[in-house]
């Protein structure tokens, strides 16, 4: 069966240790985490949303989802990669340190990617780029010869297309 990347969204009570329970389940059962995002999404109701990317066959991912559903403070779990495919976005901050003669090239690429310049000095520049992970990968590749110095990526956030909600 085909091994592919899956994105799983998990709605949890924002209580101490809940992330540990979810992540511990992955490590304890030998599942790989490629991407992890967690943030409070509703302060009043005390809800957080965890987005995890993992690889595996459909059967393994179905098993992961069932295991996560067993965790007591988990409200809902949704495999975002099955129909319909979800909208997935990531944000990255990318710092380049370069001689002034290369800077124009970097700025042109940033424009093409609609990346924002969020910090500029004489020697350096920090770009903010938003999009699918593949877009960020490409941006990073293009910046490599132009003095790429540091990268930070947010990890994925994802929502289903259409009217479907978690």
């Amino acid at each position, binding site marked *: 069966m085909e091994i592919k990347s899956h994105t799983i969204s998990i709605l949890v009570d924002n209580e101490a240790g809940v992330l540990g329970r979810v992540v511990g*389940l992955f490590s304890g059962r030998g599942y790989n985490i490629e991407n992890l995002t967690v943030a409070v999404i509703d302060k009043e109701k005390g809800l957080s949303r965890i987005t995890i990317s993992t690889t595996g066959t459909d*059967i393994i991912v179905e*098993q992961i989802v069932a295991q996560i559903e*067993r965790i*007591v403070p988990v409200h809902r779990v949704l495999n975002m990669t099955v129909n319909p495919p979800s909208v997935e976005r990531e944000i990255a901050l990318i710092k380049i340190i370069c001689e002034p003669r290369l800077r124009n090239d970097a700025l042109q690429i940033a424009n093409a990617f609609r990346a924002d310049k969020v910090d500029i000095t004489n020697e350096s520049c920090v770009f903010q780029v938003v999009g699918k992970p593949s877009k960020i990968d490409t941006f990073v590749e293009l910046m490599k010869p132009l003095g790429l110095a540091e990268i930070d990526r947010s990890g994925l956030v994802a929502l289903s297309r259409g009217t479907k909600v978690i």
Partner: protein
Amino acid sequence: MLLKGAEIFIKALKEQGVDTIFGYPGAVILPIYDELLKDDELKHILVRQESGAVHAAEGYAKSTGKVGVVLVTSGPGATNTVTGITDAMMDSIPVICFSGQVASNLIGNDAFQEADMIGITRPSTKHSYLIKDTKDLARIIHEAFYVATTGRPGPVLIDLPKDVLTGVAEYTPKIDIKHKTYNPKIIPDVDKIDEAIQLIKEAKAPIIYCGGGVLNSYAFKGGLKNSKTDSVELLKEFVKITNMPITLTLPALGCFDGEDEHFLGMCGMHGTYEANMAMHGCDLMICLGARFDDRVTSNIKGFSPNSKKIHIDIDKSSINKNIMVDVGIVGDAGEVLKELIKTGVKVNDYSDWWKRIETWRSMNCLRYKDSDEIIKPQKVIETLYELTKDKDTYIATEVGQHQMWTAQYYKFRKPLHFMTSCGLGTMGYGLPSSIGTLIADRTRTVILVAGDSSFQMNIQELGTVLQEQIPLKMIILNNHFMGMVKQHQDLFYQKRHASTKMDAQPDLMKIADAYNIKALSVKNPLELKDKMKEWLNHDGATLLNVMIDENEHVYPMIPAGQSHNTMLLGGLK
């Protein structure tokens, strides 16, 4: 009215119907112990080591269908419970472990007797709570009882910082609220029932394969309030209607009458020839509350290759975990049986299938060569059954060869009468578990069947037997070996007995005597039955040390990684 945390603890336990706590005190948990002194209704059983407390609570829970409650102090007191908690997790037993914790302001400081119990037990509990405020204490205790007993039961740990026990708050009574996240599915989907019935209609050679889920359904009804569903009666009815053969896993023994002709014996690694051949050769397998454990399936590639499979389980994650099935039904075993019977199962004539099964059965795979010179362990269990079958007898075992012989030769006929460690295979489980079973009702006849090695693993609990003055009957199948490990060395390591011989065995007679337990010993097969009668008829606690043939193996056996049709049958073939 404001109450102290320790008072709230006791009030909440009583409201939940708790009558017995198994525990061991220590500094930070003293506020509760001090409060327990003032209470006449809650009985505290002082064990000799905390792992004994958890196993005793497991025996109590498994034999009564009530929650087992454990109370220990922080640090080492709490870490000693980890094996028992993991055992309860593997066998889906509702145990609530209250562990003391250092005061909130010291947590994380590496304080004296501090251990991160929430972190340590995270993978081996169904859920755990660190209480930070006395006002949450009662609510969380009530929630813990709900979580432990509903859906697939399991252990819950509650960590109690000392200041939570000395602080004050209003008491929160138990109320029936829908939990905001945790809502196990108990009633099955109708369309899945229809799919199952369709498969049953087409089957010519079906088998029912039941696990501990049937007993948990019997005891806890999935958590359904006021449910009258009796999974054991429904299973009996289902077998009667369908005339299907049935096999059970180790933890399920007793959920179906072991003397009934439809019962093929236990399945799996040390299951009977007929049960395993029927599992292999069936065209429909109805798995009810079992999890296709590797001790049952062995090599999954060769497991029951030509059958359709229906898997009924209250835990959705058990379905398609080890074995891919054709129909997965999420729900309580009893509720699913009820629906299947109500909807109307159409059955075929299985006489050809039964003929094949009878051929396998005629192999008589459990026969063994008895001897006048040396006691055969199989004979001991057969005799035990003969002598106790007419009484309401509870059996607990340790883990190893004696456990398998008990499972094979003792015919369990009633639910909740067999206490044994299955999933985790915990040596040292039996003695404390048998104590918990007897403490639950001191008029019970409770027998511990132990091996000489596992008996020594929690032997300190003889102190609890002494203190509680309980008439526990202990029988030790003594071969001076870790018999089951030796068996694996005999078969797969060319008889190299690395570290499995118990060269220095203490004098068990003197040990029993030290604890004021009557001790008997027998070596001569011709005296076995009389000695066993004397052992059983004694009023107080009694230990019978039986010197058995150290070269006996448990057969049949499916070697690890092989298929069901490749069983080793010992010298019988």
